[in-house]
Structure formats: C-alpha cells, structure tokens
C-alpha cells in the first residue's frame, strides 16, 4: 500500500512539474508576437507586466484573473486563431446557444489530438479496431460530431451519424411540447434502428444517456452486435451509470465520459464496484486542468471529498483559457495511477442554478 502511495505521490509530483513546464510553454506561445493569439496579445497590453516573464507555473495563472465566457460570444472569431496557425484550416465549434449568442471556440487539430488520446484508453476487445461506429447525439455546430467521426476513423472504422438538435429539444421542453418531443425522439431512434440493422460491422456506439435509454427500449444492443458504448454529451449521475450497467446494456463495455468544447475530453476512472457507480472524471492534464474551488471565493481550492465549483483551465497551442469558472460543481477526487492528478466526482450543474436551467434533456 505504501509502495503504491509512494509511487502515486511520485507520479503526481512529476505530473505537476510537467504541468508547470507546459504552462510556461503555452503562455510563451500565446503571448509571443510571432506565434501569439490576437486576443491575448491585445489583453497583454492592458497588463502592467509581461505574462511571459511573470508566469512560471500553473499557480501563477492567477495573475491573469478569470477567463470570462462573454469573450467567446460574437466575433471576430479570428482573434482567437494564433498567428502561427493563421494559414491553417480552422474549425469553429459552438457551445450553449439554446437562447442568445452561443460561445465559439476555434480548433485546428485539438479535437483530433483529444480523441487520439482518448482512443488510447479504449480497450480493443470492446471497441474493436476496424469496427464501425454509430454516433447518435448532438451534431450540427458541435465538436462532438467531428470528434466521434474522427475517433472512429482513427481506430480504422467508419462512423454512421444520426443527428439531433439539442436546442430544439430544449425549446420543446420549454414550450411544454411533450408529445412533439416524444415524436422527435422516436424519429431519431428510428433512424438509428435502421442503421444498426443494416450494417453488421457497427460494434461501437456513441450516444447520450437519454438516447441510450430510448434506444434500449427498442432493441437489444448486445444482440445487434454492439460491444462498446462511449456515453456522454450531457450530465450523467451514478444512478444512470448503475442502470446502464445492470439493466440497459449488461455485458457491453460502458464508458462514461465528460467532454466539453472548451476543455476537450475527460476520461472516467476505470469501473470499480467499490466506487458504487460514482462517476469520477480526470481531465486531460496538462492540456486541461480542473480545480474545484469555493463558490464564494474562487481563490480557495476545496479539500478532497468536498464540493466545489469547477474552474477549468485549457492549455493548448490552439486555445488558452485560464481559470474559467464553469456553471458546474463536483466533489474533489484523489489522483489515481492512470491519472495522477485531481479528478472530479459527481459533476453536475451548480446547486444555485439547478431549478432554473434544464440539463441532460437529450
């Protein structure tokens, strides 16, 4: 046990050192006149210090304050493209936007890198290389569509797509159009059934919790040849996790994940019955870091096991987002061997917003 703790402790120390080095590299990149991002170069002009000189570690990012999500609404989007990538093809992904202007994040290859890293965590037995995928979930302007398709291709497969517009789903709920919502759900599920029945080589599935429930009401995924399910896109709780493993898809590999356009993709702690189906995610450090902080004082991290507000930092050459306070909360989880840095347990919408915001509706 001591050996394990020592080993984990050593790994955690190394991960932290790696994070600090990564922070220095990313700050250099985004604030350098040669490679930097127009937004951050302009931002630096408002500072009385040069971030490249002052920021030497993750903790030093405090000097930049908190990233504001309003900065991502509206244009010009090109102000987020680092100068070094100005001649590269640029994707733009949206997040939010059920009402009002969505937030935009540009991407060049980040989503591919994120999903290549995630691919390394997928067991080949249940997500066989060369097998095809069905992606049943939010597509449109979201990163998820291209990302899952890329994941399938990266693993040698082809991705079949059934699209779902979550903004329309939100509106139907808002208007109390339950029957229309049911019809739309059936419309989406029917398309999936056609695809699953027509293509024998589909063995992997991406979908959201609610769509997985709806799909399993119509078909046995095990019988139709699905071996692995990558499930995410919206909030998921321990009860759903248990229900999925025990009743919806017993015998099929079930991988809960937490991804978002701003962060990338967080992996779930490998399933352990001792966790009682708690869902514990680990961000793709050093490309992204999640800290849980006191909601009333974001400068104060919470202790392990305590509830805190999610503060997300994204650190890639394409996108730099320091200390953004998300609308989510969770409990702080201990590092583990595969991910020797802090994780988040039972991620959910902030308590104060739970009555006013609908989440996980699709």
């Amino acid at each position, binding site marked *: 046990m001591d050996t394990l703790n020592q080993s984990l402790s050593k790994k955690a120390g190394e991960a932290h050192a790696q994070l600090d080095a990564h922070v220095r590299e990313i700050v250099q990149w985004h604030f350098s006149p040669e490679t930097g991002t127009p937004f951050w170069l302009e931002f630096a002009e408002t500072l009385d210090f040069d971030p490249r000189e002052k920021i030497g570690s993750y903790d030093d990012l405090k000097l930049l304050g908190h990233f504001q999500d309003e900065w991502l609404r509206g244009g010009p989007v090109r102000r987020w493209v680092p100068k070094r990538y100005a001649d590269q093809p640029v994707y733009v992904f949206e997040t939010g936007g059920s009402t009002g202007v969505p937030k935009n994040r540009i991407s060049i290859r980040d989503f591919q890198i994120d999903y290549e890293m995630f691919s390394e965590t997928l067991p080949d037995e249940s997500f066989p290389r060369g097998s095809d995928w069905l992606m049943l979930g939010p597509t449109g302007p979201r990163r998820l569509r291209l990302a899952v398709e890329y994941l399938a291709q990266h693993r040698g497969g082809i991705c079949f797509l059934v699209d779902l517009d979550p903004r329309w789903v939100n509106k139907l709920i808002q208007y109390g159009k339950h029957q229309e919502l049911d019809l739309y759900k059936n419309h989406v599920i029917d398309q999936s059934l056609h695809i699953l029945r027509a293509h024998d080589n589909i063995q992997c599935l991406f979908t959201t919790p609610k769509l997985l*429930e*709806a799909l399993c009401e119509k078909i046995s995924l095990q019988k139709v040849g699905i071996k692995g399910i990558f499930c995410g896109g919206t909030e998921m709780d321990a009860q759903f996790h248990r229900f999925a493993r025990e009743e919806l898809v017993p015998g099929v590999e079930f991988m809960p994940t937490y991804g978002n356009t701003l962060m990338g993709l967080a992996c779930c702690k490998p399933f352990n019955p001792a966790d009682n189906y708690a869902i514990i995610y680990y961000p793709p450090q050093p490309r992204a870091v999640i800290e849980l902080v006191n909601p009333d004082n974001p400068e104060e991290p919470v202790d392990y096991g305590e509830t805190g507000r999610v503060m997300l930092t994204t650190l890639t050459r394409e996108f730099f987002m320091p200390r953004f306070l998300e609308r989510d909360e969770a409990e702080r989880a201990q590092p583990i061997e595969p991910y020797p840095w802090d994780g988040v347990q039972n991620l959910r919408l902030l308590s104060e917003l739970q009555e006013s915001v609908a989440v996980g509706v699709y």
Partner: protein
Amino acid sequence: MIHIPILRAGLSYRSLNLAHVSHIQTGEPLAVVSQANRGLIAKDLHQAKDNKRVLEDLSVLELLAIGKKAANLFIESELPLDDALQSPDDYIHQVSGTTGLPQSLCRNNMQKIRLVLDEMEEVLDGLTRGLDLSIIDSGWGTHNKRPLSYVPQTDALGAVLPSNSPGVHSLWLPAIPLKTPLILKPGSEEPWTPFRIAQALIEAGCPPQAFGFYPTDYSGAAEILLHCGKSLLFGGGSTVAPWQANPNVQIHGPGRSKIIIAEDRISRWEEYLDLMITSIAENGGRSCINDSGVWVPSHGREIAETLAKHLAEITPKPLDDPDAEIAAFTNPKAAEGISDLIDNQLKVPGATDLTAKYRDGGRVVEEAGCTFLSPTVIWCEDPEHPLANTEFLFPFVSVVEVPQEEILDRIGPSLVVTAITDDDAFIVDLHRSSEVERLNLGPLALATNKIAYGDPHEGNLFDFLYRQRALQVNRGQ
C-alpha cells in the same frame, strides 16, 4: 434515516439518486426518497401487460374484499416502510411534517381514504351506474336483456400526484378493483400516503404487481403521462396546460369551486354563512373542492364583510395543535410570493381585501417555526378583476356581485358549484352550463367540499379505464 424506495411491480428498489424530504418546522431530514430515472420507468412499463394479468386473475369481489381489509390496515396497522415499520401515528407525523398540513387534518384525510377503501362497492356502483360488476370479470354479460361488453383501455393507470392533501389519493383507488395496475409518481413532499396505501393493499392480499411507485423528475413524469395508456395528472395551471388536449390524460387542475346564491334566496344569505365558511376553510382551504368564489346578485359587500370577520378568527396554530385549521407552507418564499401577488393585483381598481382590517398583522404569519397565510376575503366589485376568479393553496375567497343572468356566463370552468336556489328557470340554466363540473343543488345546500366518491370527479374513472363495445352473440339455432 427513513428510506422510501421505488416500487417496481411492488418490489423495493433503492436508487443511487436520493432526494431528502425535511420537516418544514425543524428543517430536520425526515426521509430520503429514491428517485427513478426516466429509463427505469420506461423499462418497467414494458411489463405492464404482465402485471395487469396478475390483477385480472382476481375477481372484482375478491379485490373489493382486499380493499375492505386494507381500509383497516391503513388506519390501524404498522405497515412496511422499506426496512422499517410505520405506525399510523408515524404516518400522521410524517405527512404533517413534510406538507405542513396540521396533524388533525391529516387524521381527517386518513379517514377519507379508509372510507373509500371500505365502501368501494358503493363507489364502483356510482361510477358504473349500477353495472353488474361480474361483467368486468368476464368482459361481458347481459344487462336489461341486452348483451353488454366492456373492454379495458390500458394496461396501467399512471398518476402524477400532488402534495396538497392526502385525501386526494382516494380518487385513484378504484383502479385496483377495476383491475388496472397503478404507476404512481408521488408529489415531492408527500410520498407517504400513496406508499402507505400500496402497502396496506399488498398486506391485504393485493398482488404487488399492481403497484409501481416512482418518485421522479419532470422527465419521469412525462414518461408516465405519455406511455401509461391512461393517466391522471394533478397540478396547477402551468403544469396541466401542456396536457389539456391529450385524451389519455385526465386533468385534475385548479378547481375554482364556487357558491352561487340566487336572487330568490339572497335575502336569507346569513343562513348559509356556516356553509360558506366550511366550503372555504375546511381542510385548510387546500383542496380544489374548497370554495374560492361566492357569486351573488346582491348583498355582496355585506356577505364579504361578514365572511372576512369570521374567517379572520381562524389563526395559524402549531401543526400538532388539535384545533389547528390551516396549513403551513413548505416553502416560505411561496407564501410570500402568493401574498405579494395578491397585493399587486389589489392595486388594480375594483377589489378590496376585507380581512386586512380584522386580523392582527399581515397576511403572512410566522408561527411555531412555520409560515402561514391567513384566510383572505376579497370583495370584488368588478367580475373581470384578476382576483375575481382565482384560487390559492389557503383559505381564499372572492365575493363577486353580478346580475344573476350574467353569473353563469362569467364564472368560467368551476369544479364544484353549490347553487342555493329554488328558481326552476335558473336550475335549468345550471344544468345546461358546461362550465360546471359538479353541481350541488337542493334545499339542504351542500358545502362544495362534500363529495360523494361514487360520482365522477373531473371525469369518470370507470369510463376512462373501460370502453363499452358492441357485442353480438350469434348462438345459432
């Protein structure tokens, strides 16, 4: 900590998603309630046909006998509450503690449920208008020398239930002798009563498969309403509005029940004072069958003043006070919100709160750690005033004066109307009014909240669950 499980075909299931229900006075958690995810309900609904078959194996008479036994068990016995046992007193304390209904009123409501379980044969006789109940067993029979057949319309009856008053649960009880399993979604503050009723019936011999009990969120409730075949939905205007046009959902929304005193009796209005007070305030004024409007052709101001004086005497008391008559609000902000809404609407000319001058202090009252709204009587000179035709979850009434010939055109949908009149022409008009759901007539006027359980209530449950079909039996020569 007490745990209230999900019941899946009668079998307890502990969810990993638990909601806490607290005592409104102390804030102390009283129970954790397992929450069902939507998919779990959907999965179980696939078993509805099998569950119904189990119930169909018993005759109506056997199920009526089970109901009678359950009536006593509900009132007198310790019944399972997951791993614990719940005594009748535990139940009273728990319901009162999480809903704010005084314990004395909880006891009264308990008796209503007992009564319906015990006298279910009369209830069914009323709902079926005297049908030979063996026709439900066999599916067909002979009535007045003609073949008669009824076919069930659903494999399960969904019920999205309220938290306002335990007595309301008597409305879905006839489903069991009508051989229809239940899929119950309890109100978030009142899981106690439907769970205890289910346990009493199971203990009395009802097949457990007759009970699905799913505390859940809005998506779980929508699942029940969309896929149960037939459902009852209880709730306020905004909750029920999206389902109004769905013929498979029977709406139990706002009541806006009324007393009308016609011209021929209005000079004797004082004789009906007790009737009005009972109709307005009994059961804490929490039911859709409580009176929220007194409509008269004259003497309105006088009536309103007198009602205000009497109702202002009803003051909040601790929940365990045997004389407590009004209920506390589980959410103090809701009480304040309602009071603010009334005050804002009183700024529109044409209405006055006459109780204000008779009570000490404001409408919102803090007593024994709970928040109450004191009875409120509004005198409405203008029948179009926003307070003229509304209801709230406390003793609230508007007295509205309009010419008799206009009353029935203006009252709007009204769950119960007690009409005090001997005027034959007006009685004919009342009979013809489609706005009136339940009509109380006769020289001995009935309070709006005195209902016969064998009568239809926002629809007839038997007609909702069974459809008459044509049957021709050709026996040849």
